């Protein structure tokens, strides 16, 4: 019954995602999807000065992509924008703590890509 990949912590984040939802009038927002599997992650940010004061994410997709996004929100909230931007992609893979194949690495990094775009202030092409 145990799985190398689906460790309890990942399943916990997947079932009970942290910082899930939306922000009213966020300071930054970004959404992207993985065209090959259809996974979607969207992130809203609010700043208090230089610091990320609030993060919300939502999306749909596999446990890996959603759990990774959830973990990442914990890592970002309370950081300065500059420090948050400095988080390396390896950090999220380490946080997941399981061996990922290349296809699943893409799942794991979808939230990271979206978060970095939101932090950089890339205009959200999905917004109308």
């Amino acid at each position, binding site marked *: 019954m145990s*799985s190398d990949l689906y460790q309890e912590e990942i399943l916990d984040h997947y079932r009970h995602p942290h910082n899930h939802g939306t922000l009213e009038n966020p300071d930054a927002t970004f959404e992207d999807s993985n065209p*090959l599997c259809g996974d979607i992650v969207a992130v809203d940010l609010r700043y208090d000065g230089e610091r990320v004061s609030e993060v919300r994410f939502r999306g749909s997709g*596999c446990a*890996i992509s959603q759990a990774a996004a959830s973990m990442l929100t914990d890592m970002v909230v309370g950081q300065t924008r500059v420090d948050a931007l400095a988080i390396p992609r390896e950090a999220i893979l380490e946080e997941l703590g399981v061996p990922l194949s290349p296809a699943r690495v893409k799942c794991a990094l979808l939230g990271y890509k979206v978060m970095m775009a939101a932090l950089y202030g890339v205009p959200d092409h999905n917004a109308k």
Partner: protein
Amino acid sequence: MLEIDAISLTPASMRAGTPDLAKVRADFPILSTSREGKPLIYLDSAATSQKPRAVLDAMSTYYATYNANVHRGVYAISEQATAAYEAGRAAIARFINAPEPENVVFTRNTTEAINLVAYSWGRHSIKPGDAILTSALEHHSNLVPWQMLAEERGARLLHLPLDAQGRLDLTDLDGLLAQGVKLVAISQMSNVLGTINPVAEIARRAHAVGALVLVDGAQSVPHFPVDVQALDCDFLAFSAHKMVGPTGVGALYGRRSVLEAMPPFMAGGSMIKKVTLERSTYADVPQRFEAGTQAIAEVIGFGAAVQYLSELGMEWVRDREHALTAYLLETLSAIPGVTIYGPPVDERGGAVSFNVGDVHPHDVASLLDEDNIAVRAGHHCCQPLMGLLAVAATTRASVYFYNTTDEIDALARGLHRVRRVFGS
């Protein structure tokens, strides 16, 4: 592995004299591999099939003993290569009951076969305001080329709808055809739902309004007997790699009169009659459509593949898959929380899409992979159909004649594990 299915599910056609499954499986080297002690359970043949040794040997023998370019050499191995290449064409023509070898044009895959028609026939025959009729369950390869063509030519794209079971709904077919349809492009079997479509009936009604009919045979030609003269289609596209043949080659069947009226698609060596610096005249079909050095080894391997299938017998292949599909559907239905998509067993082939509760298909496939069970997860190149099913993706298990009920039982055990891990 105990072959219980050979006993419990033997259809009428599998009497003495029919292939011995253990021997058949032994023909496929990959089927006896394992990972960390777990044998490979390959349930993704709709994506690409496995290959028997006979196909690999046919290609190695070419490379190791008579490798040469074809059609223009006067020395022995070049003549031998030319003969083997053209024997491949003849074998594939026979396999689909084409009137002549010249009906068969080699392409890279089904996708290129369809694009060849869209570029060569389409760009010259489709006029502004004309319509092309396809369906809501098409693979992107039989949808996007027609979108591009329609946009370029100012034509309209119409779609046959589906009923609730995932079958084409033909109620309005004649009404749709009457809207200026010049081409009907339809798959004979859906790679997602397994639905087998009544293409002969559609062709009859399409021809009545003068439209041509292209059949996407990527999922049908590998799995049951397909007879282009019985279907009376104008084009049939299929890929070697899904029918125990190599990657890198596919075929377009075309009605002779239609092919002959078509201008070249790609230009280059071997597809010309006479070239001056200013202009060129083009070779007869099928060479007109085979520019440059072709996939010689692959065509030879494709020929070996249809010979292998013919020796098994396509009726046997069909019956065996029917039995496996019935078992697969039954097995999946017995698992709580599993939703199966598509029509009942008698209207479908062995590509079966499903979901396990709300567990994402990628997670299903990843968990199954821990047991070395290979299934596909995603949109299966059918995004519009995913929309109709109101899902982002499905998990798909697809069987071929070499699969066993034991493997399906292993899939079931894997899916029970998915339910336990995800608590669904």
